[in-house]
């Protein structure tokens, strides 16, 4: 599971993005791939701390940030192997330059992975201005029904 951190109760957590999203929707630097298993069929994304980065770097106009979740059964973690998931799996926030000191969020996005993808999902974020917005994104894999009619062999904990 790469950088994910396992918890004791069939949950893992990972920081999936921390920085200034680019303005390129397909940029490698703007997305993070997560692998699912039976023990964590849901993933909760928390997008928080959205703001103009510093007073000196702040943009001089309004900026908009977009995020979306993609699904794929392909093992190759390349942006082109993923397709957008329709429905409530995306968000948009506009940060007003007139409110430069403001912080936006949190925004929560809860995805039932089994409904969309049997393998991997990808979190993608991009901005209307690559230098104007900073954000932090955390993902939490959870939701496994432990030892309730499911063979223990099907409930493998995510690796540390």
């Amino acid at each position, binding site marked *: 599971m790469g950088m994910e951190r396992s918890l004791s109760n069939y949950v893992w957590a990972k*920081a999936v993005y921390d920085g200034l999203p680019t303005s390129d929707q397909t940029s490698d630097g703007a997305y993070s791939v997560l692998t699912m298993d039976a023990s964590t069929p849901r993933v909760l994304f*928390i997008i928080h701390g959205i703001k103009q980065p510093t007073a000196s770097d702040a943009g001089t106009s309004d900026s908009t940030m977009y995020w979306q979740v993609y699904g794929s059964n392909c093992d190759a973690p390349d942006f082109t192997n993923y397709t957008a998931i329709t429905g409530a799996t995306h968000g948009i926030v506009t940060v007003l330059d007139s409110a430069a000191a403001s912080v936006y969020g949190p925004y929560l996005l809860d995805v039932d992975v089994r409904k969309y993808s049997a393998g991997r999902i990808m979190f993608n974020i991009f901005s209307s201005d690559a230098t104007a917005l900073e954000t932090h994104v*955390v993902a939490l894999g959870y939701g496994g029904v432990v030892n309730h009619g499911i063979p223990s062999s099907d409930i493998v904990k995510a690796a540390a």
Partner: protein
Amino acid sequence: MHNLGSRAWVRGVYEGQPTSDATTSDGAFGTPVDVTAQNPRVLFLIHGVKLGYDSVVGATSDATMHWYIMKQTTFAAGSDADFTDYADITGATHGVIAVSSSTATSGPYMLDVNAIKATGGSGSLLFHAWSSDATKLWVTAVAIGYGGESRGNDADNFVSV
């Protein structure tokens, strides 16, 4: 508690079978969560609520679980937390979950707490759960601390807990 790279942490606060004692049972509440300026918000995620565990899988009657987020009222640095040190937080900081024997599972439930406001800026938060039947329900709860604001603050103010 695990630090995440984006000014956030996560920890499991409860996993097991809540007792039927609503007030004093040590086994019915999770590990306290400290509140700091770095993570002024704490999101509690309660999931995997289900009937039965091990020998009682397949319980045939409904059961109800109550859960609360409590605040520490007696702050003693370095001492072990005790249930009596905590009090209910008024407002939307609790929930009631009825699990039907016909569906067997319920959840997830999320509760996002402004921890600074709830505690007055210091102390800790506590997840507490109790059940109508101490043998019937299983639950898992996770807490995520997040929401720290870096603008205008020295980096030293954001040491992860």
